[in-house]
């Protein structure tokens, strides 16, 4: 018996591995490794599929004027992390254009000013009213003759939930 060296018919037959054909080890720069393995896995280059038709003739002149769509979020919401939407129940603010079932955009990061329409936590409930600071005291003013102003005897910033910046009203 011979020792060492080439043994005929030893090992796995060529061409029945993963690729079903003979293979050869080669050195590949690491930076290209991903591309080359992709090339092999896909049995060629994968061309991106463009989701558009190719037109013969003149290109549309409108193609040069594509602009971003109007984004209502950007228009209505200045501080997205601090802004919440709430829904109106009741008619106490109807004369201020705030109707039942309207959606209010409420920004909690704004400083409250006299005359702002605000959301306030009173008696454990959230309510929408206009803030009125007068010499007689601080009041929450409804915008509906049916309701009385609510005096705030111990007014402090803690009860203010947020400032209403927009009303979304469905017609």
């Amino acid at each position: 018996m011979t020792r060492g060296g080439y043994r005929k018919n030893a090992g796995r037959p060529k061409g029945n591995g993963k690729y079903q054909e003979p293979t050869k080890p080669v050195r590949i720069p690491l930076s290209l490794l991903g591309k080359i393995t992709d090339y092999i896995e896909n049995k060629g280059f994968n061309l991106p599929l463009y989701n558009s038709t190719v037109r013969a003739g003149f290109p549309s002149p409108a193609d040069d004027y594509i602009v971003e769509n109007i984004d209502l979020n950007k228009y209505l919401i200045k501080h997205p992390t601090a802004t919440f939407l709430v829904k109106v129940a009741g008619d106490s603010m109807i004369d201020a254009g705030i109707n039942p079932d309207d959606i209010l955009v409420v920004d909690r990061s704004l400083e409250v000013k006299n005359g702002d329409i605000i959301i306030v936590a009173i008696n454990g409930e959230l309510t929408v009213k206009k803030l009125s600071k007068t010499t007689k005291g601080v009041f929450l003013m409804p915008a509906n003759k049916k309701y009385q102003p609510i005096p705030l005897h111990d007014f402090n910033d803690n009860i203010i939930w947020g400032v209403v910046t927009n009303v979304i009203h469905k017609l």
Partner: protein
Amino acid sequence: MKNHPYQNLNRHTKSVFALVDCNNFYASCERVFRPNLQQKPIVVLSNNDGCIIARSNEAKALGIEMGAPFYKFRQLIEKNKVAVFSSNYTFYGDMSNRVMKSLQMMVPDLEIYSIDEAFLRLDNIAFDDIINLCYKIRFNINKWLGIPTSIGIASTKTLAKIANQIAKKNLYNLAPNHLCDLRDENLQIKVLAQTAVQDVWGIGKGISTKLNAIGIENALQLRQADSKQIRKILGVVGERIVYELNGISCLHLEEIAPRKNILSSKSFGKNVTAKSDLQEAVANYAVRACEKMRKQKTLAQAIHVYIRTNPFSNKPQYCAGNAISFASPTDNVAEIIKSALKILEQIYRKNYEYKKAGIMLLDLVKQGENEQINLFQNDLFLNQNINENVKKFDDKKTEIIQKTLEKINQNFSKNTIFYAIQGTKRSWQMQCNKRSQHYTTDIKELVKVY
């Protein structure tokens, strides 16, 4: 210290970390839209209303225990009119996302550590300005989002964690404003001497008994211990904890898992824009997090996924995250990946260069800890449903279906089949009896104002 592997870390000794932690986060979230619950006791229950997973301070004061089964405290809860909520992970996830975004607006260098905790890096800010900045952070998060926070400041994450514990409970009357600055050396020594080793970040009960055995009982003793000796007992992470206690910052967030959550996140080597790349990353993190979870034999109740751009680049910024809860606590990799990808689908926006992605498995429970879970997972329930479906077919087809189902049963865990058939239906029926509205994510569930 001469030939020590961490000697180069001296350049980090001037680092400053602030750990911002939301107080009783889930309970605080519920309060934002329910002002009638200010100063009232609140508890939040796990999926299927099994265990108590969050308590307001008032509920803690009543003696209601964290992680206890709901029924154990039902009487106490009813007697004291405690507000009870099913977990609303969609809502908590959105609020968490808002907290993190707000923090990032004030401090760009931020590492999210859990759904309600983040480390801020404040290295290049003047000593006194740091305190003012942290006051501002607390004020703003409370004003913008209605969430109270506690902040611990120190030169390392481990020390910041200890400072945060002090801030949260106002221990030793050091933090009347939920703000604790532990940068002063003398104060550190005083505080560490009163901190038990098991309360040090990354040291669990198992490790602390080992340390107790060699006479180390408080954090100060651990700080003064020979780091080489600690390395022999606790490995390299233990050694790093010793360095961290000495004010040398060398721990990465990933090395220390939060006890109730599992975090898996990483910055990408290069910026990533394609959705497919993010999907791959998120799926990989999900697998890794599942491995961690299976190792500690726990099940997750919900998953939170976030992605963000590089805050230090001039490119357009985007940062988003969201959470969804599982029908019942799970460690099923397939389901967790599916949920992670579903969230990614919701939060992904085109044309941004993403720098980081992460997933969190939330509110882990020990396997078999929650009795109610088993009720739904038992075979009877499963077979009933299969039979319902099977009835629609004739005998021959029935046989084929039964065999297929059996095969699936063998190949996958029973949970798999159970989810596929039951889907979300059960999650609505069983789990959300006392769930609050999706105030911030569903236009049909907005809070009402009068």
